[in-house]
């Protein structure tokens, strides 16, 4: 009696073989989802590092700022740094210098202009920080559907195979369905970290924005007091 290989060999189920056996459409879906996953993780890692660095440096910058005696000297020194807080600070200083350079100073107008200039700088910085987050959101919401599409397509194909072969044994159906389900697995594999990272990173950016707002308010108060002299 010959021993038929009833159980599929393990290598049949490895991701590479599953990919190689899949239909063209399913292959495309798998490649797309794999790229999406790589991109997601690139953004998660890159953005995570960046946000962490920004938060740490902003804290240091603010500590130095409140310790500094001369704003002009501080502006020429560490105020030029490539930091959101430094950008807000320089926007405030630039507006201050412009408003107070003339003979007459419109105190109310200067205050209003300082506030708008700094809030505009905050908005620009937050935009710059969160530019990649929309990608995470998109991947998080779309990847499962793309994976599902691949699965549906793959299962459709295996059913047409069944119809063509007139054979319903599990051995004919199983590989096709397994490779089709692999597409959904990839979709979820890309989507789950994307959604988690999106929530986490947007929360981090919210905190940075709030911190920048408090810093801008403090700086605005200092400049306002300066105006009254």
């Amino acid at each position, binding site marked *: *009696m010959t021993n038929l290989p*009833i159980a599929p060999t393990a290598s049949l189920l490895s*991701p*590479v073989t599953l990919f190689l056996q899949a239909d063209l459409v399913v292959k495309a879906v798998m490649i797309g989802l794999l790229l999406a996953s790589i991109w997601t993780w*690139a953004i*998660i890692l*890159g953005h995570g590092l*960046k946000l962490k660095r920004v938060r740490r440096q902003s804290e240091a910058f603010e500590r130095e700022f409140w310790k500094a005696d001369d704003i002009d000297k501080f502006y020429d020194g560490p105020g030029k740094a490539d930091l959101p807080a430094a950008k807000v600070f320089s926007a405030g200083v630039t507006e201050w210098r412009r408003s107070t350079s003339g003979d007459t100073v419109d105190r109310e107008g200067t205050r209003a202009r300082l506030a708008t200039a700094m809030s505009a700088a905050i908005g620009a910085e937050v935009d710059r920080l969160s530019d990649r987050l929309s990608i995470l959101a998109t991947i998080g919401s779309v990847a499962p559907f793309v994976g599902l599409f691949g699965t549906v397509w793959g299962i459709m194909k295996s059913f047409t195979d069944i119809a063509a072969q007139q054979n319903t*044994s599990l051995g004919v159906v199983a590989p096709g369905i397994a490779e089709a389900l692999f597409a959904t697995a990839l979709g979820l594999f890309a989507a789950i970290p994307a959604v988690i990272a999106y929530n986490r990173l947007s929360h981090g950016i919210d905190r940075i924005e709030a911190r920048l707002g408090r810093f801008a308010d403090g700086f605005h108060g200092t400049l306002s007091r300066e105006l009254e002299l």
Partner: protein
Amino acid sequence: MERAERIGLGVATVGHALLFGILSLGLVTRAKLPPPRNEPIDVVLVDAIGLRSASPDAAQEAPAPSEAPTIAKPEEAIAPEPAPPEPEPAPAPAPTPKPAPPKPAPPKPAPKPEPKPTPRPEPKPAQKPDPKPAPKPVPKPAPTPKPAPRPAPPKPAPSKPAPAKAAEAKTSVPDKAAAAPAKTKATDAGDARDRRRPDRDGGGAPSKTAKPAGGKTGEKPAKPAGSRLGPDFLKGITPEKTATGKSAKPAAAVSAVAMQGLAGAIKRQVEPCYELGSLAGTPAMSIVTTLRLRFNKDGSTATAPVVTEHSGVNGGNQSYVRQIDDIARRAVLRCAPLKLPADLYEGGWEDIELRFIPGQMG
């Protein structure tokens, strides 16, 4: 692209490559399941079974079972139950009639039977249309212990209905079915009492002979119970003689046992052609197809097999019915010239209905 993002992209790419590499290798090196081992099965060839029954008696009794089973089985179940309780009540009533005998003895038997029959007939038709075999057990134990030794014939007569009632009172709660026949027995006993008394005077032995007499109303002796195993015995294919016009002739010509041998022979010959193919293990396995086959004398099919009946069809396998039918039909046609005993042709396999149970084929 900033430095942090470049680092992120690099790490992500490398990480994915590593992950999929590990998954591929890890799955490959995972312990393989041991291949299922098929234990060798001993095959016993049973072609040596005689196609014809050796005993002629069995052949004559066999035609009866088709109608009997439903009736007879309850009896068997009931008969033993009422029998044991009777002896118990019997001693109790025995003393009571003793003081009575001088005067009230004669009147008692007369009034008692009368009121009893009137209420009893009501349950009879409702529960059991045919009370035939039931009467026997009741009278048996009652008369044998008492009437034989004691010279007074009238006393035991009234006592019998009493124990019957007592038995009913006890048994009626658990099994009403048992109580119903018991009642009918009592009535029969009442009716038959007049007939029996003379017998009892003769002694205990004749009383037994009287019982079948009392059971005459039921017509049926307990015989059929024995020969009834037949239809269930060979389930794979059970021959059912076609009802139309054939029932009289085949009963005489071909015995049921021979028919079963015939069915076994047909099954053996058709089995190799019966291929479930991909339907094996599907819900289709529970569909039982009954085919009506007509053969020529040489064993070839006279007409195409006709599907007469299905059973075991439910919502889950409805769609397989046609395939199963085709498989059964094809099996017969493919193995068509069957080698069957020529002497069983007339009324036997000339026109036969076969039930194909997929689970027991092949």
